[in-house]
């Protein structure tokens, strides 16, 4: 049981890293490729074919797929805070690569987000519902 939970924890960490990485880079390329305004509804479609935007969309597809995989075993109430580390990284990417201003208030906010992520990822197990279900299934299987 302990090796099973260790396997799951590792799998969760790797998958969460892919989720966060693809989300941050995807959002970054979207903003970088975005024009100053989208005047007509058609432009919402044509803008998708700009190289930067396409790359951003591709990365967000990776994000969606990896997030779905992660949610197939991990709780939503675990995935949400843990992948929020992306919010902090996006703000930092905006500062470093797009030269957006980050005020003192924003840095405090980023720190709070990081603290929340650390609390949930370090302090709780990724799964609360399935482990109980699986034990139940095993017990039922052994009884047969």
């Amino acid at each position: 049981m302990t090796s099973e939970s260790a396997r799951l924890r590792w799998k969760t960490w790797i998958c969460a890293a892919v989720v966060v990485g693809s989300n941050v880079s995807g959002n970054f390329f979207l903003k970088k490729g975005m024009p100053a305004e989208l005047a007509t509804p058609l432009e919402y479609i044509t803008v998708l074919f700009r190289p930067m935007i396409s790359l951003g969309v591709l990365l967000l597809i990776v994000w969606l797929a990896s997030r779905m995989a992660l949610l197939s075993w991990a709780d939503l109430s675990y995935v949400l805070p843990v992948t929020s580390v992306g919010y902090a990284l996006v703000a930092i990417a905006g500062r470093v690569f797009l030269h957006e201003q980050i005020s003192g208030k924003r840095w405090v906010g980023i720190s709070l987000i990081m603290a929340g992520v650390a609390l949930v990822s370090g302090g709780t197990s990724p799964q609360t519902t399935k482990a109980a279900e699986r034990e139940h299934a095993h017990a039922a299987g052994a009884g047969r």
Partner: protein
Amino acid sequence: MKWILVGIIVAATTVGEVLQAKGMRHHGEIRFRTGRLGRAVALLARNGYVLASIAAMAVSFFAYLALLTISELSFAVPVTAVTCVLETILAKHVLHEQVSWLRWMGACLVVCGVALVSL
């Protein structure tokens, strides 16, 4: 206009992500082996929760594109994190997860952080 878009994004994302979690829970743990992965994709393509979640997330995506044209990236992304608390509430009541006080604390810290980042 900015806050209307934020509202649309938050509503669509919350519905989409809870449906996504429900659909994936229904499917069971994904195993990263070639044969199994293909079968999982085929099964997911017929999973109603997953399809509905993708529709909701498409709405959220286009609203997000619109928001990006009128605001900074370091505003647009963090402000949508309000979904974090809404979804934790739904995770407890709809998905029946055991949300410990550590998880509530974590979700609250994230939202406070987001509020500071977007002010």
